Each structure stands twice: as C-alpha cells, then as structure tokens.
C-alpha cells in the first residue's frame, strides 16, 4: 500500500519559497495504476521523486507498505529503494559499458543475493521481447529497446512500486505504444503499484486512474 498524505514541496529561491506541491494525498494498493499529467514545471517529476524516496517532501508523510522511507538512514533508504521501488526514466539511463542482460541485473548487485535473478532477468527480457539481444550493448539498440530494458531493470527486484518518468517521452509513436503496452502488461503480471508521469495523453488514456497536477495539487483528469 502506498499512502501519501498532505505532501508538500517548496524550494527556497531568492524571492522567497517556491511551492511546487501542496497538500497532495494519494492512496494506492497493489495492482493500482495511476497516470499523472500536467504541464512542464507543474511538479510531476518532483512528486514522482518524492514517491520514489529520492527526494524528501517539505511536509506530509509517505508510507509504502506501512514504512516511511524518509525515516530511514541513508543506507536503509538505499536498501528500501532497491527492494521496493523500480524506476523508469525518460532517458533510459542504461550503463553504456554493460550488456543488456548486465544492465537488467545491475540492481541485484546491491545485495549479494544473486540467486535466481539471472533467470528472472532473462525472463523479463523475454517478456519485453529482447531475449535475442542479451549480449548487446545499449549503443547497439534503438530508443524503444533501451526503454524496454530499463523497464526490465526496474522490475528485476519485484518492486512494490514502479515509478515511470515520461517513459515514452523520447520514443516514436510505435515504440511508445510497445513500451506502454509492456508497462501495463508487466505491472499487472508483477502486481506492483504503477505511477506514471507523462505528457502523453495517449499513454495516460490507457490508465484506469488519471490525475492532473495543477496549482501544486492533484486533480482528477478529464476523460
């Protein structure tokens, strides 16, 4: 269960605090999927990073599975992210020095618990349709393929929460459709909570629940 309660985020500026988020509350359980839309600079990514425990809120509380990650020390927080949260960024952020399979396995290096992950990585890559590209380097793949690897990497540790920041933002229409389909298919199969931040109305339309971030708060999006 992901519970966000009255989340707020302000940034100090020379002209006084800039409020990006204010009084955001959200409650999502396993299998829920939400798309958050909004114009540039509306604070979508900030919200996503707060939900992903990458950035602390100025106010409000966040719990995932009953645990507030911002109460953790750095080392525990890192372990929490590793175990419970998966990320997909607009820019795939693959390690160019590693092969496709290795990139997917990167999160497993945090612990020495490697058992079974190799098979899971191969399975995930098969699910994203890249089982024949295991040894390729990111530079040898298209944008869509890279994003599919990023998706597989995000799911390798069976996270409770999958966060995607403009996952199709850099992709052409066909690739974007493929990635979107995979995203929706895999989150259901993995029974994770999926939160996607996107500009793409097309992508958002495929989500059962949609919000729009305006004036620092979430509003149900029009159908």
């Amino acid at each position, binding site marked *: 269960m992901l519970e966000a309660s009255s989340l707020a985020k302000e940034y100090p500026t020379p002209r006084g605090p800039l409020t990006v988020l204010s009084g955001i509350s959200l409650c999502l359980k396993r299998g829920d999927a939400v798309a958050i839309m909004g114009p540039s600079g509306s604070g979508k990514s900030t919200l996503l*990073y707060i939900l*992903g425990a*990458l*950035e602390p809120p100025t106010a409000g509380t966040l719990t995932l599975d009953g645990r507030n990650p911002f109460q953790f020390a*750095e*080392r525990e*927080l*890192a*372990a*929490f*992210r*590793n*175990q419970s*949260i998966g*990320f997909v*960024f607009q*820019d795939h*952020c693959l*390690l*160019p*020095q*590693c*092969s496709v*399979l*290795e990139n997917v*396995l*990167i*999160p*497993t*290096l*945090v612990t020495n618990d*490697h058992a079974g*992950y*190799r098979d899971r*990585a191969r399975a995930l890559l098969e699910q994203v349709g890249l089982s024949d590209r*295991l*040894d390729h380097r990111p530079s040898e793949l298209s944008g869509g393929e890279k994003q599919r690897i990023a998706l597989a*990497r995000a799911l390798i*540790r069976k996270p409770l929460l999958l966060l995607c920041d403009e996952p199709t933002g850099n992709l052409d229409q066909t690739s974007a459709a493929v990635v979107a389909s995979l995203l929706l298919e895999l989150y259901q199969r993995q029974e994770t909570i999926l939160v996607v931040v996107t500009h793409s109305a097309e992508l958002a339309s495929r989500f059962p629940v949609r919000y729009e971030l305006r004036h620092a708060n979430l509003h149900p999006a029009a159908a």
Partner: protein
Amino acid sequence: MNCVMRTSTLLQRNLTWYWRTNLAVLLGVSTAVGVLGGALLVGDSVRSSLRDLVLARLGNTDFVISRNGFFREELASAFDSSCPIIAISAVVVHEPSGRRASAVEVYGVDERFWKFQAEPGQPPSGQEILLSAALERELGGKADDAILIRVQKPSAIPLESLHGRKQDVGKTIRLTLKWPEAAFREFSLEAQQGDVRAAIVPLTRLQRDLDQKGKANTILVANGAVSLDLIERTLKDRYALEDLGIRLRTLERQHCLSLEADSAQISDALADAASTTAKSLGLRVEPVLTYLANSIRVGGREVPYSVVTALDSPPAPSEPDAITLSQWTALDLRAKPGDAVTLEYYLWKSDGLLHTDSARFRLAQVVPLEGAAADRDLVPQYPGITESKSLHDWDPPFPLDLSRVRPSDEQYWKQYRTTPKAFVPLARGQQLWGTRFGRLTSVRILPPSDAYSNALRMALDPAKMGLTVFATKAQGLAAARGATDFGEYFLYFSFFLMVSALLLTGLFFRLGVEQRMREIGVLRALGFSIPKLRSLFLLEGTALAAAGAILGIGAALVYGDIIMLGLRTWWVAAVGTKSLSLHTSIAPLAVGAAAGMATGLGSTAWTLRSLQPVTPRGLLAGVEKHTSSGRWLLVASLVTVIALALLAAALVRELDQTAGFFGAGTLLLIAAVCFESAWLRARSSAAIRGQITLGVRSATYRPGRSLLSIALIASATFIIVSLDAFRRSEASAGTGGFPLVAESVLPLIHEPNTPAGRDALNIPRLEGVQFVPFRLRPGDDASCLNLYQPRNPRILAPPAAFLRSARFRFQDSVVRTPNPWLLLESETADGVIPAIVDANSMTYSLHLHLGEEFVVDQTRFRIVAALADSLFQGELLISEKSFLRLFPDVEGYRFFLLSVPPARAQEVTGVLEGALADYGFDIQPAEARLAGFHKVENTYLSTFRSLGGLGLVLGTVGLGAVLLRNVLERRRELALLRAVGYRPQHLATMVIAENLLLLLLGLVTGTACALLAIAPAVLLRGGRLPAASLSLLLAGVLVTGIGASLAATAAALRSPLLMALRSE
C-alpha cells in the same frame, strides 16, 4: 549464454568502458610511483655506488694500522694477510712538461702489496713509478719520462721545536714513469668519490730516500672476519717500544735505564706511564730535561753554547731561582756562589719565529766535573750536534755564531762532549723550555731492571701513543651512507612532480566520476547506497592504482636511471664523480609502489567525498553540489591571518626570517587559492556581456576542476620562482675580503710575513701582501663537495690576530656578539672545544645545529657560531690554542688566506707558487673556491628546478585535460551557439578566455606569493632573481596553455554541428 552479473563484472566493464579516463588515472599513479620509487632508488644507488667505490679502492684492505711517524715493517708479520706500506702525501711533477699535481697520495709498496691486493703483473721496482689513471691524465707524459715526487722529509724531532730542521722540510725523489703491464686496481685509503690521484713507488726506494730503511708507516690488514678488537689486541701484544719511537738505554756507569724518544722529547703521557710502571716494579724515576743555552753569563763573561740540564735531584739545586755550575764553567766565568747567572737561549714559538729569551739565576753551588755532574748521557741525540767532533762541526737548525766559540770551548767539547755545564731545578727548566711536545728529554729508571721494558710496553696503549688501528673498510662503508641522502633530496626535488602526478590522478579520477554522474544517479535510484557506490569506485581506484603501481615500478627504473645519468652528466658538478650507477633493489621499488598506490588511492578517495552531498535527483539531472563561497572566504581569511602573523613575527625577528617568509608565502598561496575558489563560485551568476565573460563563466561552472588547475600552476610557479632566488651569485662576502686562498702539501714552519720567515722560505718581499696562516689537521672534507659522510672533518686553526679582525659574515652564534670569532677563545668548564663551522656544512654535511656538541676522535666539540656562506665549508675552525693542545704533533701551517691588492692577485699567485713549489703551495682565487661550493648548490637547485619544471609541464597537461573535458562536455552548447550564429573564432575566444583566466590566476598567484616568500633571501642573502630565464619559463607555460586552448576548441568543433545538436 552463461552470464553471472557480479560486482567484479561491473568493475571490469567500468574499467574497460572508461578506458581513456582510467588510463589517465593509471598513468598518474604510475608517474607518482615512478617518481617516488625512482627517487628512493637514486638514494639507494648513490649509497651503493659509494660503497662500491670504497670496496674497489680498498681492495682487500679491511683494517689499517698507521702512525704519524715510522715503525718496523716487520710489525706487519704479526698479522695474517697483511702488508706494510708507506703512505704519504706528495707533490708530483712531470719533469719534461713541468706539470705539477699537489696533494697526491703516494704509496711505497713491494710485492707483498701486489700479492695482498691480488694485482696482476709486477709492482714497480728500482726507480719506477706508477700513476693512477686520473693522475696520469692530469700530468700527461709517456713511459720512461722523469717524474719527481716531493714529500715531507720524516723528522722524529718536531719541526716546531728548537732542534727541528725547518729549513728543508721536503725531499725530492726522482723516478721514471712506468707504463702498467696490466690495468691495476686504483688504491686509495680515503673515502672520497673523486678520481684517485695516486702514485705507486717501490717501498725500498722510498725507505732509502726517506732514510727509513726497514720502516713503514702503514700496515694494511685483510680478513674482514677478524674484529677490530682482535687486531688491537694483537698489535698490543706484538709491538715494540721502538715502533712508538721510544728506546730504553742501559747506562752502566749511572746504573740506570734511560728512557728516550726519537723526538728527543718525552711527552707527558709517556712520562706518566714510565713513572707509573717504574713504581709498580718498585723502581725509582728521575726525570731529565736538557736544553741548549746560547750563553751562560756572569757579569761580563760568558760561556757560549752550553748544555744545561734540569733535574729534580742533585747536582741541581732545589730553589727555583738557583743554578749549579760545573767547576769548569765556574772557573771560566770566575763565578762564585751568590753571583747572578744569566742563561740566554733560543725558543721556537708558535708564531713561527725563533726568539732569544733569557733567565736569571743565583749561583747556588759549584760542583766538580765528576759523578752525576759529569754525565754526558743526560743529553738526547740531536742530529747535527751530538755526533759532531767539534763545536765548529755543529750543524744545528738554528743560527750559530761560531766566532763566539773559543778554543777552551772546543777543548771542553773534545774532553767532555755533551756533559752539562749547569744544572737548574726541573720545575724551572720545564717552565722555561717545556713545549707542547713534552717537558722532559729523558726519564731515568733506577736501578736497571730487565722487567721494565716489557712492563712499560704492556702499560702503554699504542693507540694513545699514535699507533692506531682503523677499521677502514667498515668506516668507509659507514661513510658511504653519505653526507647527503640523495634519496631524500630527490624526494624533495621530485616532490612537486609527485604532487602534480597525484593532483592529476585526482583530477582525472574526478573527471571520470563527473562524467558518470548520471550513472551514479541511476545506481543510487536503483538502491545503491553511497558507501556501496564509494566502495565500487574505490575498487576501481584500487585496481587502477595497483596497475599504475606495477607500471610505475618500470617507470621508477627508468626515472632512476635518467636521474643517475643526469648525476653523471648534467649535474656532475653536484656529485663530483662519474662513478655512479643505478643499483636496483626491491626495497625502494616496493616502498615507492606502496606509497604511490596509497597516495593514488587517497587521491581518489578524496575525490569520492564530493559524491555525498548531491541528491540522486541532482545526480540524474547532472547537478553538482557546490560549497558556498562563504566557506571558502572564511578559510581564506583564516589562513591569511595566520600568514600575516608569521610575516609580522619574521619582520620583528621573533622568527627566522627565511622560514617566516617562506611559511607566510606558502600560506598566502593557500589563502589565495581559497579566495579564488570563493571568487569563482561568486562569479557563477555574474552577468555575461560578451564572449570573454561567457568564457569566464565557463570557468566557474565546475569550480573544483578550475581550482585544481589553478593550484597546480600556482604551486609549480611558486616552487620555480622561489628556487631561483636561492641561486648563489658568483661574488659573495664569503671570502672575508681575502682575494686568494692557498694550501700547501708540506707545512710552512716559518712566518711568511716577517723578513726572517721570507728568507727562510726563500720568497721575495711582496708589497701589500699579507699571509694569514692557519694550522690544518687533515681530515674529511666536510663540504658539499664530499658525498661521503665526514666522520673526521678537517680542522683549521686561525691565529689569534685573525680572530680579532672580525672578518667574514656569520649566520648565527650561540651568544649575540659583534665578533663571534672570539667565542673560539672562550673557556668551557666541561672541556668542550668551541668550534665554528660554515652554516651549510653544519646543516647539510655534518647534520648538526648551532650549540650542538659532537665528538671527533674522542674529543668533544661544540658549535658556537655558524659562518654564512663562507669559503670554510670543508672544515671545522677552532682556536690555535685548542689546536696545539689537541694536535701537538701536527706542525706548521698548511692553509693560508692572502690579502693581496686585487690587481696583483695573478702576479702574486705566480710568484708564490713558483717560490713555494717545493711545498706544494697551491693558490686559488677565494671567489673561485666559493664558486666551487656555489656550483654544487646551484646544480642541486637546477635539478630541483628541472624536476619542478617537469611538474609544471604536468600541471599544464592537467589544465589542458580539464579544458578539453570542459569543451567536450559543452559540445552541444557550442554547437547551439554556432547554430545561432557564433563563428569558430568566437568560440575560440571563449575557450581561451577561460583557460587564460585559470593560467593567469595560477601564474600570478604563484609568482606573487613566491616573491613574498623569498624577499629576505633576495634582500639579505644577496640572492637574485633571474628575471630573464624566469620570464621565459613562465611565458612558455602561458603559450603552452593557450596552445592547449586552441587544440581543445579545434577538437570540440571537429564534431559536425548537426550531430551535436541531434544528440540534444
């Protein structure tokens, strides 16, 4: 596919993927290891080379037994594997050309030496002489050429005593140059790195010409397994009294033994031993002092040239002012008891002049010429006197007025020979005629005992009597550890190079980390904790450092070899030998590798500290966390305050000025870099008005990189500018205003400033020329010219008048006084001898400090003052009084400062060197002597500067790398600018502005702080700033930096515009 993703896999991927950056880091570490290991290797190599020289030159010699005088050569047979030789210093002249070499070691050897040293071929025989290669080069010549060697004539009788033969102290021996049948090993007993200047002559020939048949003055002993203690015990068991120049005569008529010495004087130590031994055997001793009176006068009558004996027993009177005359003398003088008797006699005083003194006595008694009063054996053997048949045959070493000799005197000589004509109390005699060599002429032991001779032999310690055993090889090897630790020096010299390499390592590693910030962000988002990430990067750093260390070991060998080559060639002036070679050993390489690896790793760990403050989101967004300019300003201000405090302390002389200014300069350098850091951070939001300000803004984008570049350039400049200030100029106050300095191989006994002295020395009167003669005890050169650790430094004693003239400049003294020379005459309750040394020798060769005590040959010295950059860099200076007490056997003057009208220096040099050629008198311009020392110092500085310059090159390379990285990272930005209408030259202007800013900040900061640091050196020490060469160097750096800017711009612009834009 069988893929297991492990940390090691990721590590491997990272290492290979970022190979360019990693290679740079690896090269940085390997450079540091190479420089560090190489420097240590150089130290080790110099020590090993010096050891090799000692071992090669000593051959099989482990111990040396030597004496100032001569002893029986058969004494050598007491030791297994030994050989007797004569070792003597000489002037060697190649007669056909007239070429002359002073201070040559001459060894008189025979086949025993050849066998001992396992030399091939035959030793020289007959009139042959072999020259060492260096001496042969110096003198030239060919086989069968005539070679003259001029050596000091051995004289058992001290030259500086009345009976010493001062007129002809040398002996010339004519020999024929022999061409060696086979290369013979260069032999030298001296531990010094310079060429061996030695001649080898037949022992028998030298013995004959020196009138020392069957005698030697040195025994070489082999067999390192034997201890010094055993050699000393064997010597004590086997020596004979005559080996110490002592003899015991049995006087039948007097029914006693007479202990006499070849020197005709019994030293106090011998007299004490003789007395103690006699008492232990229940025997009685009677000390005797006999002297020659020029006249015994009573009223208007006199008896010329009479022997007078001082005794503690009759016939000598007991009252101090009383005298006993023999009946013959009393009759001749018509003297009766109670008459006043005046004795006139010569005294040779330590001023190098013969004085006539007199003493008045009261005639106490007249004794008949019989019994104890008719004892002609009271007189020791005086060559030229005692064996003469008549007074007219006397050939004494002092003026004799034979016109005063009457027939009756001749008659007395014929009848009574050396029988004394007068007797005085011993104490009075000793007061009048005692010298530093002794206060007795013989000691009589009564009654004669067969046991006495051996008992005395057992009681005497040969070492204390001048027959000394030296563990020459062990001492040489110990000295080979060196006065200068070259490893340490080259560590200092290479320090900046090493720091540059490490800064570059850190810089490249930082660039690598910065390049991977997004990757780090992803990893953190994926759950990698900071410690995990840090350990991952540290693992990478370790792998790179380990590889760098392995590569660095090779680099250390190359670097060490190049430095050794440099020491043999470009910097040979600093070491004075070409016999240095690289000696490879594990220890310095291992230490270098370990230390280089550790510092490389430290450098990367420090870089990783910057990871922590940046949030994963910031990392993903490519944001860097910058410290505020306020903190930098605070640090800069604090450091500035400390620097100003140091400066103030130095100005009011609460702190050594050089140290204070240097410390302040260094701190100001740090403060300036901190201020610049704050400034760069503050400029990050400054308005952009054009391409130049845009370029300047770029320098503020990554302030850490910019700061590292500035620090590199600034500290290199600081080092180079400050070093140049310490270069010594040719002209210096270190000569004390004396234009010439001279040394002689044979001692000059006479005072050359007096007409009598000049006559004796056969030198003309030279208008305006004054000699300041110094006594010299030969020893190890304590100057920077000697690489070996001086264990027994040369000791000089200036005359008292010189001390009062207050010449030369002092760096410091234990007591603030206008004339520190006078501290030499201060008496110390603990018997420590006050000594003055040159400040450079004190610090760098002797490794002592002002006020410190040290021991040479069981004598304690204390440094009471340090001369500032003087020509006395090779020796200790003590008072003449202390010198004569410590070294009574070292006679005459062998070191001279000459006051000469500067215009006549050359002419005087020619005249004196010619007139005193037989003494091996070598004159050198004082400034040239000083310049010889300066040359060594300046060579060291050049070495330092060269390596510092290399560091500067590395700094410039680092700057270029930073620049290139910055430009490449901004490729898209530059492409965009081009898209909106910027031309390439606009972009070049921006890049050059950025680079120039960093370069100028570095150069100006380094130069300004260095100028402050060296101000006292420039103003007080007479150092000077070689503005031309310095400007050239700094301009070179500037040009290189601008070149690097243009290259970086070109590299950035090479990528097509659209491609760069597309990647946006």
